[in-house]
């Protein structure tokens, strides 16, 4: 059990970020993540070493979240991600904020993004999975992943622009 505890400690935060991308609710994401880790424990004998362990684990996390979301039929945030396009894609727009403030802005941005886009961004940049591994986790086609990632990056900066702009106007 000590090994499993270490495994939980290692992957819990990244997996939690993935769960939040899909569910958009931190409390629910924690509950679902606990179920996902229990699935991992019960099915670890089924892991075939075809992919890396982390890819297999993220797949279980994502599938568990998607199942819960399907049951709840919560698409509350889907409409909120339709933010008017802003021309700037200036990556330095958060430079004036300290780390804590930056984190808050990014968290808010991810909450406002479409679940698919937020999930793919986190799988690609946070979990550092390749496009092929993202395909294994999500079952999207590779071309679809590239398109969504491109759109996601754009939307992320649009929302960030909007959030930081609103903040400055106050």
């Amino acid at each position, binding site marked *: 059990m000590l090994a499993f505890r270490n495994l939980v400690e290692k992957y819990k935060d990244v997996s*939690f970020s993935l769960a939040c991308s899909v569910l958009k609710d931190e409390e629910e994401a*924690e509950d679902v993540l606990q179920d996902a880790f229990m699935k991992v424990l019960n099915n670890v004998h089924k892991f075939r070493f075809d992919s890396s362990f982390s890819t297999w684990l993220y797949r279980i996390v994502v599938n568990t979240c998607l199942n819960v979301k399907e049951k709840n039929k919560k698409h509350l945030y889907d409409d909120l991600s339709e933010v008017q396009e802003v021309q700037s*894609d200036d990556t*330095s727009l958060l430079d004036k904020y300290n780390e804590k403030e930056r984190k808050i802005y990014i968290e808010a941005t991810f909450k406002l993004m479409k679940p698919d886009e937020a999930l793919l961004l986190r799988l690609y940049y946070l979990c550092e999975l390749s496009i092929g591994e993202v395909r294994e986790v999500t079952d999207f086609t590779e071309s679809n992943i590239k398109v969504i990632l491109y759109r996601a990056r754009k939307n992320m900066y649009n929302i960030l622009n909007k959030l930081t702009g609103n903040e400055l106007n106050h």
Partner: protein
Amino acid sequence: MNDNKTKELIQKSVLQTSDAFTKELMEKIEFKKSQVKAIRKALIIACISSTVLLILITMVPLHFSLFHYQVKLPSIMIKIAGSVFVFTLLNKLLSLRSELS
């Protein structure tokens, strides 16, 4: 769009679970383990008692008197009723076990 900057922003904003997350998870796992053990025990007891019940059913006297009336029970009826009861019980226990595991 700067890919490295995006990566840096996202990696720095990793969300964190609550402090009690791991502890709660381990407690949940222990609780589930004990539940599965209890169900397994109950299943064994149910199997044994079902077998005993089936044997008893086949030995029930089919002719007996009740308030001066002679009652005759068809043996097949008792066997069917007993079997339905036993299999329903087993089915319930098995589905409970698979739900827990």
